[in-house]
């Protein structure tokens, strides 16, 4: 058992499942949006606003935003532990990796809060 404190859940299985479930949510959201914009090509602001004021749409958008954050965190964390290692950066690898992970975490959190603000403000 390899211990780690910076991954999403401490469990490889949980992270792996989160990444797959969030991928399905994101794919569904993307396909829904694509379909909606395809069938309502002459969309107005009112229609767009009405869509996003529906409770089910708010839940769906919020789910997609959380999914994006979790999915991106698992992916970026994996990248950081693959490439920002002692083998590549020597003794400073831990600091570099931690700064990179912190930046990713802050960025994803910002995107989530900002996304909620934009979508729910419509």
């Amino acid at each position, binding site marked *: *058992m*390899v*211990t*780690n404190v910076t*991954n999403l859940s*401490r*469990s*490889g*299985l*949980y*992270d*792996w*499942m989160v990444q797959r479930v969030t991928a399905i949510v994101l794919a569904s959201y993307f396909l829904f949006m694509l379909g909606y914009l395809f069938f309502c090509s002459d969309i107005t602001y009112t229609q767009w606003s009405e869509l996003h004021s529906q409770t089910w749409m708010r839940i769906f958008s919020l789910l997609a935003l959380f999914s994006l954050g979790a999915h991106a965190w698992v992916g970026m964390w*994996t990248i950081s*532990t*693959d*490439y920002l*290692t002692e*083998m590549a950066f020597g003794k400073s690898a831990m600091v570099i990796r931690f700064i990179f992970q912190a930046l990713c975490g802050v960025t994803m959190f910002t995107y989530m809060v900002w996304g909620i603000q934009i979508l729910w403000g419509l």
Partner: protein
Amino acid sequence: MLVSIYRYNPDVDSVPYMQDIQVEIPAGKDLMVLDVLGLVKEQDATLAYRRSCREGVCGSDGLNMNGTNGLACITPLSAVVTNDKLVLRPLPGLPVVRDLVVDMAQFYKQYEKIKPYLQNDTPPPAIERLQSPADREKLDGLYECILCACCSTACPSFWWNPDKFVGPSGLLQAYRFLVDSRDTYTEERLSDLDDPFSVFRCRGIMNCVSVCPKGLNPTRAIGHIRNMLLSSGT
């Protein structure tokens, strides 16, 4: 034929280099790469490489031949040589001891980690623990691994995290003991693997499958381990 070989003797060389040697291949013969190494050694006796059984059983002569890992003793020149040139390097990702000889300590450490032996806490029977033919069949495609390290050293996840990711070879063996009906430590074995590195660093690119000289499928075994973890964890 031109043979280009990775050379490095840490006692003499400050950096590794490639040595080009012309080798006369007997006409009409499709030699194995190990035979070519023998011909090279006749010209330059300082070349170091491992070999033993010369028939793909011991797993000593794992090499990188024209960019692909494999066993030198069972790889014919016709399978690897292009443009009459053969480039031989040590297995990638492991520290080089000398020339084509690598330090396998990290690879064996991962193998030890999965506890590659039967664990059973029930009272032992008088003679032996029996297994049905159906249960025995589950071990086919797993027990044949000869630990040559061709698969693990072809895996980028193992290159990046050789101390944390068990690697395809170790995981194939982990599944061999997980699926063995005579082993009762399945839950303990699974909980040892449920971290973000040991199993889940596998990205399923299947380099291991394409290089395995015994035709085994570590990716499938890793998939089975994931499924076992999933069913015990949900």
